Protein backbone atom coordinates (compact mmCIF):
# COMPACT_ATOMS: atom_id res chain seq x y z
CA UNK A 1 0.00 0.00 0.00
CA UNK A 2 1.23 3.48 -0.87
CA UNK A 3 -1.14 6.26 0.10
CA UNK A 4 -0.80 9.50 -1.82
CA UNK A 5 -2.98 12.48 -1.00
CA UNK A 6 -3.86 14.61 -3.99
CA UNK A 7 -6.53 17.01 -5.21
CA UNK A 8 -9.82 15.26 -6.01
CA UNK A 9 -10.20 15.09 -9.78
CA UNK A 10 -13.03 13.72 -11.95
CA UNK A 11 -11.06 10.52 -12.61
CA UNK A 12 -11.31 9.75 -8.84
CA UNK A 13 -15.11 9.99 -8.75
CA UNK A 14 -15.84 6.29 -9.24
CA UNK A 15 -13.24 5.37 -6.60
CA UNK A 16 -14.87 7.86 -4.19
CA UNK A 17 -18.25 6.23 -4.84
CA UNK A 18 -16.72 2.84 -4.01
CA UNK A 19 -15.17 4.38 -0.86
CA UNK A 20 -18.56 5.79 0.18
CA UNK A 21 -20.21 2.40 -0.37
CA UNK A 22 -17.59 0.60 1.74
CA UNK A 23 -17.90 3.12 4.59
CA UNK A 24 -21.69 3.05 4.61
CA UNK A 25 -21.91 -0.72 4.32
CA UNK A 26 -19.48 -1.37 7.17
CA UNK A 27 -20.59 1.43 9.47
CA UNK A 28 -24.31 1.55 8.72
CA UNK A 29 -24.01 5.33 8.96
CA UNK A 30 -25.55 7.13 5.96
CA UNK A 31 -23.73 10.33 6.92
CA UNK A 32 -20.32 8.83 6.20
CA UNK A 33 -20.22 10.03 2.65
CA UNK A 34 -17.96 12.33 0.67
CA UNK A 35 -18.90 14.41 -2.36
CA UNK A 36 -19.51 12.23 -5.39
CA UNK A 37 -18.48 15.15 -7.55
CA UNK A 38 -14.89 16.36 -7.76
CA UNK A 39 -16.27 19.87 -8.27
CA UNK A 40 -17.77 21.20 -5.02
CA UNK A 41 -21.45 22.05 -5.34
CA UNK A 42 -21.13 24.26 -2.27
CA UNK A 43 -18.62 27.09 -2.79
CA UNK A 44 -16.89 25.87 -5.94
CA UNK A 45 -13.56 27.51 -6.78
CA UNK A 46 -14.69 29.92 -9.49
CA UNK A 47 -13.13 33.13 -10.78
CA UNK A 48 -11.74 35.27 -8.00
CA UNK A 49 -14.22 34.13 -5.36
CA UNK A 50 -12.99 35.06 -1.86
CA UNK A 51 -14.27 31.78 -0.39
CA UNK A 52 -14.15 28.34 -1.95
CA UNK A 53 -13.90 24.64 -1.23
CA UNK A 54 -11.05 22.32 -2.17
CA UNK A 55 -11.39 18.53 -2.04
CA UNK A 56 -8.58 16.03 -1.46
CA UNK A 57 -8.46 12.26 -1.69
CA UNK A 58 -6.04 9.71 -0.24
CA UNK A 59 -5.35 7.30 -3.08
CA UNK A 60 -4.04 3.83 -2.37
CA UNK A 61 -1.96 3.05 -5.41
CA UNK A 62 -0.53 -0.38 -4.71
CA UNK A 63 1.43 -1.71 -7.70
CA UNK A 64 -0.64 -3.87 -10.01
CA UNK A 65 -3.93 -2.96 -8.34
CA UNK A 66 -6.69 -0.59 -9.31
CA UNK A 67 -6.21 2.64 -7.31
CA UNK A 68 -8.63 2.93 -4.40
CA UNK A 69 -9.61 5.94 -2.34
CA UNK A 70 -8.97 5.34 1.36
CA UNK A 71 -9.66 8.79 2.72
CA UNK A 72 -10.98 12.24 1.89
CA UNK A 73 -11.07 15.74 3.29
CA UNK A 74 -12.11 19.25 2.32
CA UNK A 75 -10.68 22.69 2.94
CA UNK A 76 -12.79 25.82 2.83
CA UNK A 77 -10.39 28.60 1.93
CA UNK A 78 -11.58 31.96 3.16
CA UNK A 79 -10.49 35.40 4.32
CA UNK A 80 -10.59 35.91 8.06
CA UNK A 81 -10.37 39.23 9.85
CA UNK A 82 -8.07 39.14 12.88
CA UNK A 83 -8.05 42.31 14.93
CA UNK A 84 -4.64 43.92 14.97
CA UNK A 85 -3.46 41.85 12.02
CA UNK A 86 -6.02 42.50 9.30
CA UNK A 87 -7.12 39.94 6.74
CA UNK A 88 -5.51 36.50 6.59
CA UNK A 89 -6.24 33.59 4.30
CA UNK A 90 -7.20 30.72 6.58
CA UNK A 91 -8.76 27.34 5.84
CA UNK A 92 -11.43 25.27 7.55
CA UNK A 93 -10.67 21.53 7.65
CA UNK A 94 -13.85 19.53 7.23
CA UNK A 95 -15.30 16.21 6.10
CA UNK A 96 -12.21 14.17 6.97
CA UNK A 97 -13.17 10.57 6.28
CA UNK A 98 -10.83 7.62 6.63
CA UNK A 99 -11.27 3.98 5.80
CA UNK A 100 -9.63 3.44 9.19
CA UNK A 101 -13.11 4.07 10.65
CA UNK A 102 -14.20 0.66 9.39
CA UNK A 103 -10.93 -1.15 8.70
CA UNK A 104 -8.05 -0.90 11.17
CA UNK A 105 -5.62 -1.70 8.37
CA UNK A 106 -6.04 1.93 7.39
CA UNK A 107 -5.57 3.43 10.86
CA UNK A 108 -2.78 5.64 9.53
CA UNK A 109 -5.00 7.41 6.98
CA UNK A 110 -6.57 9.80 9.52
CA UNK A 111 -3.10 10.99 10.56
CA UNK A 112 -2.05 11.42 6.95
CA UNK A 113 -5.14 13.48 6.13
CA UNK A 114 -4.72 15.87 9.05
CA UNK A 115 -1.00 16.32 8.47
CA UNK A 116 -1.52 16.85 4.77
CA UNK A 117 -4.07 19.57 5.47
CA UNK A 118 -1.68 21.26 7.89
CA UNK A 119 1.12 21.08 5.36
CA UNK A 120 -1.10 22.75 2.74
CA UNK A 121 -2.42 25.40 5.16
CA UNK A 122 -0.80 25.78 8.59
CA UNK A 123 -3.42 28.42 9.47
CA UNK A 124 -6.17 25.87 9.87
CA UNK A 125 -9.30 25.48 11.94
CA UNK A 126 -12.04 22.94 12.30
CA UNK A 127 -15.54 23.50 13.57
CA UNK A 128 -18.34 21.31 14.86
CA UNK A 129 -16.98 17.78 15.10
CA UNK A 130 -19.76 16.58 17.43
CA UNK A 131 -17.88 17.41 20.62
CA UNK A 132 -14.39 17.38 22.09
CA UNK A 133 -14.40 13.62 22.72
CA UNK A 134 -14.81 12.50 19.13
CA UNK A 135 -11.88 10.87 17.32
CA UNK A 136 -11.39 13.84 15.01
CA UNK A 137 -11.33 16.31 17.92
CA UNK A 138 -8.91 14.12 19.87
CA UNK A 139 -6.68 13.83 16.84
CA UNK A 140 -6.59 17.58 16.30
CA UNK A 141 -5.84 18.13 19.99
CA UNK A 142 -2.93 15.71 19.73
CA UNK A 143 -1.67 17.72 16.75
CA UNK A 144 -1.54 20.85 18.91
CA UNK A 145 -4.91 22.39 18.05
CA UNK A 146 -6.58 24.50 20.76
CA UNK A 147 -10.16 23.41 21.34
CA UNK A 148 -13.08 25.42 22.72
CA UNK A 149 -16.83 24.80 22.65
CA UNK A 150 -19.00 27.38 20.91
CA UNK A 151 -21.95 28.01 23.26
CA UNK A 152 -25.34 26.65 22.23
CA UNK A 153 -28.50 28.66 22.84
CA UNK A 154 -32.13 27.68 22.51
CA UNK A 155 -35.50 29.32 23.02
CA UNK A 156 -38.63 27.23 23.33
CA UNK A 157 -41.57 28.72 21.46
CA UNK A 158 -44.10 25.95 22.09
CA UNK A 159 -43.31 24.35 25.48
CA UNK A 160 -45.84 21.50 25.30
CA UNK A 161 -44.51 20.30 21.95
CA UNK A 162 -40.93 20.73 23.17
CA UNK A 163 -41.64 18.56 26.20
CA UNK A 164 -43.27 15.84 24.09
CA UNK A 165 -40.82 15.85 21.19
CA UNK A 166 -37.38 16.67 22.60
CA UNK A 167 -36.15 13.12 22.21
CA UNK A 168 -32.63 13.97 23.33
CA UNK A 169 -34.04 14.76 26.81
CA UNK A 170 -36.60 11.93 26.88
CA UNK A 171 -34.29 8.93 26.90
CA UNK A 172 -34.80 8.04 30.59
CA UNK A 173 -38.26 6.62 31.35
CA UNK A 174 -38.74 8.65 34.53
CA UNK A 175 -37.88 11.91 32.86
CA UNK A 176 -40.12 11.04 29.92
CA UNK A 177 -43.06 10.60 32.28
CA UNK A 178 -42.33 13.89 34.04
CA UNK A 179 -42.09 15.72 30.74
CA UNK A 180 -45.43 14.24 29.61
CA UNK A 181 -47.08 15.32 32.86
CA UNK A 182 -45.57 18.79 32.57
CA UNK A 183 -46.84 19.07 28.99
CA UNK A 184 -50.35 17.88 29.85
CA UNK A 185 -50.85 20.04 32.94
CA UNK A 186 -49.33 23.26 31.64
CA UNK A 187 -46.69 23.21 34.37
CA UNK A 188 -44.03 22.79 31.70
CA UNK A 189 -45.25 25.90 29.93
CA UNK A 190 -44.92 27.89 33.18
CA UNK A 191 -41.50 26.43 34.01
CA UNK A 192 -39.97 27.00 30.58
CA UNK A 193 -41.38 30.51 30.18
CA UNK A 194 -40.16 31.36 33.69
CA UNK A 195 -36.68 30.02 32.97
CA UNK A 196 -36.48 32.03 29.75
CA UNK A 197 -37.69 35.17 31.49
CA UNK A 198 -35.20 34.63 34.31
CA UNK A 199 -32.37 34.23 31.78
CA UNK A 200 -33.39 37.50 30.23
CA UNK A 201 -33.43 39.28 33.58
CA UNK A 202 -30.07 37.80 34.58
CA UNK A 203 -28.58 39.10 31.33
CA UNK A 204 -29.77 42.58 32.23
CA UNK A 205 -32.85 42.95 30.08
CA UNK A 206 -32.98 46.47 28.73
CA UNK A 207 -36.13 48.38 28.00
CA UNK A 208 -37.92 47.77 24.75
CA UNK A 209 -34.88 49.02 22.83
CA UNK A 210 -34.95 51.04 19.65
CA UNK A 211 -37.72 50.46 17.17
CA UNK A 212 -36.54 48.45 14.27
CA UNK A 213 -37.88 47.27 10.96
CA UNK A 214 -37.16 43.93 9.34
CA UNK A 215 -37.09 43.34 5.61
CA UNK A 216 -36.50 40.06 3.91
CA UNK A 217 -33.91 40.66 1.22
CA UNK A 218 -32.97 38.76 -1.90
CA UNK A 219 -29.34 39.67 -1.67
CA UNK A 220 -26.81 41.74 0.25
CA UNK A 221 -25.64 45.06 -1.14
CA UNK A 222 -23.49 48.05 -0.19
CA UNK A 223 -25.17 48.61 3.18
CA UNK A 224 -23.72 45.26 4.33
CA UNK A 225 -20.23 46.54 3.54
CA UNK A 226 -20.86 49.52 5.81
CA UNK A 227 -22.04 47.27 8.63
CA UNK A 228 -19.02 45.01 8.20
CA UNK A 229 -16.66 47.97 8.41
CA UNK A 230 -18.49 49.52 11.39
CA UNK A 231 -18.51 46.38 13.53
CA UNK A 232 -15.41 44.40 12.63
CA UNK A 233 -13.22 46.10 15.21
CA UNK A 234 -15.54 44.75 17.92
CA UNK A 235 -14.45 41.19 17.11
CA UNK A 236 -11.02 39.60 17.40
CA UNK A 237 -11.66 36.90 14.79
CA UNK A 238 -14.35 36.59 12.14
CA UNK A 239 -14.74 35.19 8.66
CA UNK A 240 -15.21 38.15 6.34
CA UNK A 241 -18.87 39.11 6.07
CA UNK A 242 -18.76 41.89 3.51
CA UNK A 243 -21.47 42.15 0.86
CA UNK A 244 -19.50 40.28 -1.80
CA UNK A 245 -18.78 37.32 0.49
CA UNK A 246 -22.35 37.26 1.82
CA UNK A 247 -23.73 37.09 -1.71
CA UNK A 248 -21.64 33.95 -2.24
CA UNK A 249 -22.51 32.38 1.12
CA UNK A 250 -26.20 33.20 0.87
CA UNK A 251 -27.04 33.31 -2.84
CA UNK A 252 -30.39 34.63 -4.00
CA UNK A 253 -31.76 31.26 -5.03
CA UNK A 254 -31.21 29.64 -1.62
CA UNK A 255 -34.59 28.42 -0.42
CA UNK A 256 -33.42 26.95 2.88
CA UNK A 257 -32.45 30.23 4.53
CA UNK A 258 -33.93 33.72 4.71
CA UNK A 259 -31.85 36.87 4.70
CA UNK A 260 -33.15 39.67 6.91
CA UNK A 261 -32.05 43.30 6.91
CA UNK A 262 -32.69 45.04 10.22
CA UNK A 263 -33.00 48.80 10.10
CA UNK A 264 -33.75 51.79 12.32
CA UNK A 265 -35.29 54.88 10.79
CA UNK A 266 -34.39 53.55 7.36
CA UNK A 267 -30.72 52.91 8.06
CA UNK A 268 -29.39 49.36 8.24
CA UNK A 269 -28.27 48.43 11.77
CA UNK A 270 -27.66 44.73 11.23
CA UNK A 271 -28.61 41.58 9.41
CA UNK A 272 -29.39 38.00 10.21
CA UNK A 273 -29.85 34.78 8.30
CA UNK A 274 -32.44 32.37 9.63
CA UNK A 275 -33.65 28.98 8.47
CA UNK A 276 -35.65 25.91 9.29
CA UNK A 277 -33.40 23.00 10.16
CA UNK A 278 -33.77 19.69 8.42
CA UNK A 279 -35.41 16.86 10.37
CA UNK A 280 -33.26 15.54 13.16
CA UNK A 281 -34.19 12.57 15.34
CA UNK A 282 -33.16 14.34 18.53
CA UNK A 283 -35.77 17.04 17.92
CA UNK A 284 -38.58 14.59 17.09
CA UNK A 285 -41.42 16.16 15.12
CA UNK A 286 -40.58 19.70 16.21
CA UNK A 287 -40.15 22.44 13.64
CA UNK A 288 -36.76 23.84 14.57
CA UNK A 289 -35.67 27.30 13.50
CA UNK A 290 -32.06 28.39 13.53
CA UNK A 291 -30.44 31.78 13.80
CA UNK A 292 -27.73 30.76 11.40
CA UNK A 293 -25.74 33.95 11.16
CA UNK A 294 -25.88 37.58 12.27
CA UNK A 295 -23.89 40.78 12.24
CA UNK A 296 -24.27 44.13 13.98
CA UNK A 297 -22.52 46.52 16.33
CA UNK A 298 -23.00 45.56 19.98
CA UNK A 299 -25.62 48.26 20.62
CA UNK A 300 -27.84 46.79 17.90
CA UNK A 301 -27.36 43.09 18.54
CA UNK A 302 -30.49 42.66 20.66
CA UNK A 303 -32.62 44.21 17.91
CA UNK A 304 -31.15 41.75 15.41
CA UNK A 305 -31.82 38.76 17.67
CA UNK A 306 -35.39 39.94 18.24
CA UNK A 307 -35.84 40.36 14.50
CA UNK A 308 -34.67 36.79 13.97
CA UNK A 309 -37.03 35.47 16.66
CA UNK A 310 -39.94 37.42 15.19
CA UNK A 311 -39.30 36.01 11.71
CA UNK A 312 -38.99 32.44 12.93
CA UNK A 313 -42.06 32.83 15.12
CA UNK A 314 -44.02 33.77 12.01
CA UNK A 315 -42.72 30.57 10.43
CA UNK A 316 -44.38 28.64 13.24
CA UNK A 317 -41.27 27.09 14.74
CA UNK A 318 -41.47 25.20 18.04
CA UNK A 319 -37.86 25.77 19.00
CA UNK A 320 -35.14 28.22 17.96
CA UNK A 321 -31.47 27.28 18.24
CA UNK A 322 -28.22 29.10 17.65
CA UNK A 323 -24.51 28.78 18.32
CA UNK A 324 -22.80 32.00 19.30
CA UNK A 325 -19.33 32.64 20.63
CA UNK A 326 -18.90 36.42 20.81
CA UNK A 327 -19.64 37.61 24.33
CA UNK A 328 -21.83 40.51 23.20
CA UNK A 329 -23.92 38.25 20.97
CA UNK A 330 -24.23 35.74 23.82
CA UNK A 331 -25.53 38.55 26.01
CA UNK A 332 -28.01 39.62 23.35
CA UNK A 333 -29.37 36.09 22.95
CA UNK A 334 -29.76 35.76 26.73
CA UNK A 335 -31.51 39.12 26.88
CA UNK A 336 -33.88 37.83 24.22
CA UNK A 337 -34.82 34.91 26.46
CA UNK A 338 -32.53 32.22 25.10
CA UNK A 339 -31.23 29.55 27.45
CA UNK A 340 -27.75 28.09 27.24
CA UNK A 341 -27.49 24.35 26.62
CA UNK A 342 -24.65 21.85 26.33
CA UNK A 343 -22.62 22.38 23.18
CA UNK A 344 -21.02 19.82 20.91
CA UNK A 345 -20.01 22.53 18.44
CA UNK A 346 -16.27 22.80 18.91
CA UNK A 347 -13.80 25.27 17.44
CA UNK A 348 -10.28 23.93 16.98
CA UNK A 349 -7.45 26.24 15.95
CA UNK A 350 -4.13 24.90 14.71
CA UNK A 351 -0.97 25.76 16.60
CA UNK A 352 0.01 28.44 14.05
CA UNK A 353 -3.45 29.96 14.09
CA UNK A 354 -3.57 29.89 17.90
CA UNK A 355 -0.26 31.74 18.00
CA UNK A 356 -1.78 34.41 15.80
CA UNK A 357 -4.79 34.73 18.11
CA UNK A 358 -2.86 35.31 21.33
CA UNK A 359 -3.62 36.24 24.04
CA UNK A 360 -6.46 33.73 23.87
CA UNK A 361 -7.78 34.64 27.32
CA UNK A 362 -8.88 38.04 26.08
CA UNK A 363 -9.34 37.35 22.38
CA UNK A 364 -11.30 34.08 22.46
CA UNK A 365 -14.51 35.62 23.91
CA UNK A 366 -14.48 38.04 20.98
CA UNK A 367 -14.31 35.43 18.19
CA UNK A 368 -17.42 35.83 16.05
CA UNK A 369 -18.29 32.23 15.23
CA UNK A 370 -21.77 31.05 14.33
CA UNK A 371 -23.42 28.01 12.83
CA UNK A 372 -22.74 29.47 9.39
CA UNK A 373 -18.99 29.16 9.77
CA UNK A 374 -17.04 26.14 8.63
CA UNK A 375 -19.27 23.78 6.68
CA UNK A 376 -22.30 24.65 8.82
CA UNK A 377 -24.66 25.75 6.10
CA UNK A 378 -24.94 22.63 3.96
CA UNK A 379 -24.48 20.39 7.00
CA UNK A 380 -27.51 21.77 8.82
CA UNK A 381 -29.93 22.60 6.05
Amino acid sequence: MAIVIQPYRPEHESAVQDFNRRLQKSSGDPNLVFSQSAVPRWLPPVGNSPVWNEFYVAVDASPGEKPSVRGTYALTQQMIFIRGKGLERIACYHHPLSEGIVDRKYASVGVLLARDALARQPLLYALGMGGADTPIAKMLKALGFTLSAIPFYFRVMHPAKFLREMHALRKARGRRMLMDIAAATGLGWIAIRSAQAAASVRAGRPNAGPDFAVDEIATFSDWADELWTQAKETVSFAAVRDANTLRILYPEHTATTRRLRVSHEGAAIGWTVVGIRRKDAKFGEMRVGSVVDCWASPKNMLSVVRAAVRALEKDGVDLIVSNQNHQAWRGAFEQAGFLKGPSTFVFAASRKLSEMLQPLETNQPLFHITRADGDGLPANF
Partner: protein
Amino acid sequence: MANEGSDLSTFDEVQGIASDIFGVAVAKLTADSSPDTVDTWDSVQHLNLVLALEERFGLQLSPEEIDQMKTLGTTAALIQTKLQTSPR
Protein backbone atom coordinates in the same frame (compact mmCIF):
# COMPACT_ATOMS: atom_id res chain seq x y z
CA MET B 1 11.98 -13.93 15.44
CA ALA B 2 9.64 -11.40 16.90
CA ASN B 3 11.67 -8.30 16.27
CA GLU B 4 13.30 -9.35 13.04
CA GLY B 5 14.62 -6.45 11.00
CA SER B 6 15.06 -4.02 13.88
CA ASP B 7 17.57 -3.36 16.59
CA LEU B 8 16.49 -4.96 19.86
CA SER B 9 16.79 -1.80 21.94
CA THR B 10 14.89 0.26 19.40
CA PHE B 11 12.17 -2.34 19.31
CA ASP B 12 12.05 -2.39 23.10
CA GLU B 13 11.62 1.36 23.17
CA VAL B 14 8.92 1.32 20.49
CA GLN B 15 7.22 -1.51 22.35
CA GLY B 16 7.32 0.47 25.62
CA ILE B 17 5.92 3.60 23.98
CA ALA B 18 3.19 1.57 22.28
CA SER B 19 2.36 -0.10 25.60
CA ASP B 20 1.81 3.31 27.23
CA ILE B 21 -0.26 4.64 24.35
CA PHE B 22 -2.41 1.59 23.72
CA GLY B 23 -2.78 0.71 27.41
CA VAL B 24 -1.61 -2.83 26.73
CA ALA B 25 0.99 -4.75 28.74
CA VAL B 26 4.42 -4.83 27.12
CA ALA B 27 4.38 -8.62 27.21
CA LYS B 28 1.30 -8.68 25.01
CA LEU B 29 2.89 -6.59 22.28
CA THR B 30 5.02 -8.32 19.68
CA ALA B 31 6.60 -7.31 16.41
CA ASP B 32 3.49 -8.63 14.70
CA SER B 33 1.15 -6.47 16.76
CA SER B 34 -0.93 -4.27 14.46
CA PRO B 35 -4.20 -2.31 14.41
CA ASP B 36 -5.86 -5.61 13.56
CA THR B 37 -4.59 -7.32 16.72
CA VAL B 38 -4.54 -4.47 19.26
CA ASP B 39 -8.08 -3.29 20.09
CA THR B 40 -7.03 0.20 21.17
CA TRP B 41 -4.82 0.85 18.11
CA ASP B 42 -7.22 3.15 16.25
CA SER B 43 -6.56 6.23 14.15
CA VAL B 44 -6.25 8.55 17.16
CA GLN B 45 -3.79 6.26 18.91
CA HIS B 46 -1.90 5.82 15.66
CA LEU B 47 -1.37 9.57 15.63
CA ASN B 48 -0.34 9.50 19.29
CA LEU B 49 2.16 6.75 18.48
CA VAL B 50 3.59 8.81 15.60
CA LEU B 51 3.91 11.91 17.78
CA ALA B 52 5.46 9.99 20.67
CA LEU B 53 8.03 8.31 18.42
CA GLU B 54 8.94 11.62 16.79
CA GLU B 55 9.45 13.23 20.18
CA ARG B 56 11.37 10.34 21.71
CA PHE B 57 13.74 9.84 18.79
CA GLY B 58 13.92 13.47 17.67
CA LEU B 59 12.87 12.81 14.11
CA GLN B 60 10.08 13.63 11.70
CA LEU B 61 8.14 10.88 9.98
CA SER B 62 7.04 11.55 6.41
CA PRO B 63 3.59 10.53 5.13
CA GLU B 64 5.17 7.58 3.33
CA GLU B 65 6.87 6.44 6.54
CA ILE B 66 3.68 6.82 8.60
CA ASP B 67 1.98 4.71 5.99
CA GLN B 68 4.62 1.99 6.50
CA MET B 69 3.83 1.63 10.22
CA LYS B 70 1.74 -1.50 9.79
CA THR B 71 3.09 -3.44 12.76
CA LEU B 72 5.32 -2.67 15.72
CA GLY B 73 8.10 -4.61 13.98
CA THR B 74 7.99 -2.55 10.80
CA THR B 75 7.67 0.59 12.92
CA ALA B 76 10.80 -0.27 14.93
CA ALA B 77 12.67 -1.16 11.75
CA LEU B 78 11.67 2.14 10.21
CA ILE B 79 12.84 4.08 13.25
CA GLN B 80 16.10 2.15 13.32
CA THR B 81 16.74 2.93 9.65
CA LYS B 82 16.00 6.59 10.17
CA LEU B 83 18.29 6.77 13.18
CA GLN B 84 21.11 5.27 11.14
CA THR B 85 20.61 7.45 8.08
CA SER B 86 19.48 10.77 9.52
CA PRO B 87 21.90 13.27 11.01
CA ARG B 88 20.89 13.80 14.63
